[in-house]
């Protein structure tokens, strides 16, 4: 009974130490992974042509984040990875916005052409 209590107390102590340990910089593997995913997603959108600058910045920051991990500068790595992620997301959103706007403009043009043709068709009808 007494030994069981000792075990529980010991476990609680270890948990407390673990929690404290978490507050110190850890390896930001998850952030780097998210940045890579965001870049890959932007790459498959129109970003390489429509938002190349933002995409390039994102790629560079992701590379720097990996270098910082190798240098054990985890805090810097985390910041770079987080920035790379939002840079890539911005690149993708901008590209999608461009392409949607282009589609809308093209449709407007198509409708105009159709209207003109329809009017001409009626005009030349026998």
């Amino acid at each position, binding site marked *: 009974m007494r030994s069981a209590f000792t075990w529980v107390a010991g476990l609680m102590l270890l948990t407390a130490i673990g929690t404290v340990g978490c507050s110190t910089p850890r390896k930001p593997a998850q952030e780097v992974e998210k940045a890579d995913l965001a870049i890959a997603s932007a790459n498959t959108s129109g970003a390489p042509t429509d938002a190349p600058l933002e995409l390039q910045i994102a790629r560079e920051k992701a590379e720097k984040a990996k270098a910082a991990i190798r240098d054990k500068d985890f805090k810097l790595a985390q*910041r770079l990875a987080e920035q790379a992620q939002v840079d890539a997301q911005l690149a993708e959103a901008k590209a999608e916005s461009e392409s949607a706007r282009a589609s809308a403009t093209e449709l407007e043009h198509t409708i105009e052409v159709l209207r003109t043709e329809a009017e001409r068709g009626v005009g030349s009808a*026998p």
Partner: protein
Amino acid sequence: MRNVWIPVALAACIATAGCATKSNTNLVNAETKLRVAEANPAVTAHAAVPLHDAQTSVAAARTSFEKGDAEVEVDHLSYVASRRVEIAEAIAERNAAQKDVTQLGKERADVVLEARTQEAAIAREDATIAEHQAAISAFSAAALAAELSELKAKQTERGIVVTLGDVLFDVDRSELKPAAMTDLNRLADLLAAEPRRAVLIEGHTDSTGTAGHNDELSRQRADAVASVLTRRGINPSRITTRGFGSSSPLASNETNAGRQENRRVEIVVLEATVPSVSERSR
């Protein structure tokens, strides 16, 4: 006296604190950008969730600054917050454009439908016109048939045959009697109305007299009919004349009635084709 100094001291404290707290340019920029985005109805309407993310991000940067975190950390959080505001704006623009695409797609479908409806209306009009034309040509065919029955024309394998009898010529002469003119005028009108039809004019005699004379007489009578039609405005290139002499009798040459039947000019109105040059020269 003590009561007076308390607010003064408080104000001094606040002022001192304010001066001591250096502002962060990147944080101020992020907050300014956020206010612009929040004031944009397109962003609040089309990018509510990304805008909320941006607001959370800006608030986190502000908290970090208030906590007195290192400048590099506040700069970093402000950068991320600024980007999130820009992402919200870009997504708002994308969603608005996609909404336009959907709307324009419907509009295009409407325009296409309208065009098809108009085409169908035109097609119906065309069909009505075709019906009218068919009615007109049926009418003209009926008129032609009526004309031909006046001329006592016969429909044969070769075409419509109008026969001018012997009584229209004097014996052994090729001049037409005035009585023939009524029929020939009617025939000329008919041919003028049917400009694509060619005409064969064939002279025939009975077996009295020499073959050479009969051939000559039958050819001259055919020519006489042709010249009347030509004077009435029928193009000579549509007319072919032949003299058959006594070679194609309709009846026996043994009787008066038979011989009279054999002396004739047949006018064959061909189907809607103009005869070839070689046929005409025969």
